């Protein structure tokens, strides 16, 4: 083993974790107490100032210097993660005085070179590739104090390098904010790149896209279960829109509800054992719950109007849904126990797509002046807050599992793609590629 790595190993081994196919070692070689408990970023502040972080290219520490492409690819993944988190401003490499990245450890770094260009944080990294394996070490420094905040070494397969980098991004976000990042979460969406609408899944940053349907029909409205192990979706492959359940690990698909008419807009109950959806087999689109065998448990909403888009509250006691009972689509909240219904939205003539976050905010899409935009409102009511404006249509909001971010579809760049933003509307970024259109995001935990 190379001298540099060996010298770090001495500083302490704290923690091993085993992930799926490959093993990941996270070796804590932190100076004890280096960043003890200090929270650099208050994520609950209404507006979050961004930290300038400099991330020079990672150093190839391997003897044979194989895989030189990783010196930019790996910091690229982390840089993008930190940018999407909304807490950081990854700095342009052009501005770096010490462009070679110099030393990896505090002793060798001239912190003045970094503070003078405005960097508040510095992330250095080195890696070695041996066969199909990759060993990476990163260090995060507070430039002002010239001290190390975090040190991690990670080991994994070269092919899974993005996943490895996402883990390190999460470590960085955790130590600076005190809460877990979203770097390892997953996205499902509808894409039409093949000419037909199919369901796809990918990493939350839009990479590693793979289809999970090949129906060559119309597949829409994917919804992850809360544990991320299953997806329900609608397909026209056997006639009208029927509801299917796909097990991600096994790949098995089964029909959950093929009743005549609609079987659409499913939403998982927090217990993972019930699904609320709109069915019209009794002649009118109403909201029911079914179990995972497709059996009807309860008719939740029965009304002559259109009732669609159920969204469970985090405790599972209530649902938000859309009804046109007032003459135009508006969002209502129903107490499942006592069946009491209250209207939530009063502003605007067209409010749809409620999504209920784990932090009890409801996001929805509202049409004003011919365009859709995304709003949030407290689940208990109150004033709504507009998050998108003057950028095409913005629809189908869906919360991150931690309720701090949203994905949504927007045609601000011409065609519909999926975008991410903070819960307060800051830091809007495109996630999916420009090939075809992507809509109907659904977000799953790691």
């Amino acid at each position, binding site marked *: 083993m190379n001298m540099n790595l060996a010298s770090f190993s001495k500083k302490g081994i704290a923690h091993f974790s085993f992930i799926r196919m490959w093993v990941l070692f996270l070796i804590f070689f932190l100076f004890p107490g280096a960043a003890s408990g200090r929270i650099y970023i208050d994520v609950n502040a209404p507006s979050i100032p961004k930290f300038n972080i400099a991330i020079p290219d990672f150093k190839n520490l391997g003897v044979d210097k194989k895989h030189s492409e990783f010196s930019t690819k790996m910091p690229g993944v982390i840089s993008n993660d930190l940018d999407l988190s909304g807490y950081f401003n990854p700095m342009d490499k052009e501005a770096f005085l010490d462009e070679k990245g110099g030393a990896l450890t505090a002793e060798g770094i001239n912190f003045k070179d970094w503070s003078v260009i405005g960097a508040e944080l510095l992330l250095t990294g080195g890696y070695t590739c041996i066969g199909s394996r990759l060993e990476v070490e990163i260090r995060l420094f507070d430039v002002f104090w010239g001290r190390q905040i975090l040190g991690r070494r990670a080991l994994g397969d070269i092919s899974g390098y993005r996943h490895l980098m996402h883990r390190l991004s999460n470590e960085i976000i955790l130590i600076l904010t005190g809460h877990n990042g979203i770097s390892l979460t997953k996205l499902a969406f509808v894409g039409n790149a093949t000419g037909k609408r199919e369901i796809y899944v990918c990493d939350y940053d839009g990479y590693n896209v793979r289809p999970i349907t090949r129906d060559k029909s*119309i597949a829409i409205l994917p919804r992850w279960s809360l544990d991320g192990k299953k997806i329900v979706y609608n397909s026209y492959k056997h006639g009208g829109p029927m509801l299917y359940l796909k097990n991600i690990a096994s790949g098995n698909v089964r029909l959950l509800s093929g009743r005549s008419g609609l079987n*659409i*807009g499913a939403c998982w109950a927090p217990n993972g054992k019930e699904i609320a959806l709109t069915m019209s087999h009794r002649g009118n689109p109403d909201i029911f719950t079914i179990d995972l065998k*497709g059996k009807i448990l309860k008719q939740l909403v029965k009304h002559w109007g*259109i*009732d669609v888009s159920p969204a469970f509250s985090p405790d599972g006691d209530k649902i938000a849904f*859309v009804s046109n009972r007032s003459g135009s689509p508006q969002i209502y909240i129903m107490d499942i126990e006592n069946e009491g219904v209250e209207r939530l939205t009063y502003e605007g003539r067209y409010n749809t797509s409620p999504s209920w976050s784990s932090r009890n905010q409801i996001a929805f899409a509202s049409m004003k002046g011919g365009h859709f935009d995304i709003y949030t409102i407290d689940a208990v009511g109150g004033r709504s807050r507009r998050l998108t404006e003057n950028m095409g249509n913005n629809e189908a909001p869906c919360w991150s599992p931690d309720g701090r971010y949203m994905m949504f579809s927007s045609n601000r760049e011409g065609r519909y793609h999926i975008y991410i933003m903070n819960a307060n509307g800051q830091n809007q970024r495109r996630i999916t590629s420009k090939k075809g259109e992507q809509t109907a995001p659904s977000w799953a935990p790691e």
Partner: protein
Amino acid sequence: MGKKVMTGLVAMAFVCSILFFVTSCAKKQVNISETVQPPVEEEVVVVVKEAPKEETVVEVIEVPPELVRQIENFEDTNIYFDFDRSNLGPEAQEILKKKASFLRNNRSFSLLIGGNCDNRGTEEYNLALGERRADSAKQYLIALGVSGDRIKTISYGELKPADPANNEVAWAFNRRDTFKLLQ
């Protein structure tokens, strides 16, 4: 010759109506399946819906040109709706009266009505609205004496726009019911 064609026609109509009866019964039974493969009966339903066989039959038995023209006219004439509405305007009612008269005079045909919306709004809401639109036409035809057993509906919501553009003209064109005759 003419007699042969007539006999063929009658026989075909009979076979088709039995086929349709069997499949529509079958569809009612199909609800939930535990397997990846759909039940066999469902595959048959698909055949009836898209009706490739029936279309072939129509050509083979040389439908009189007048009837072909009527069928084309029937299927090419959509009815249109206002934004977020599923009620039938006077023009739509006139069109449906003509369709009802054709269906009363040609009892071997059944009908599939497709309900569609413009792309504004959520897919779920538009699927429900599309179903309402298809159902409005169905109920009107029933009121005009066409048996409800002969009419099926399917909602495509905003999934099958006639014009994919994003403007008032395209939207108005997309808020429609389509009509497909099945024999």
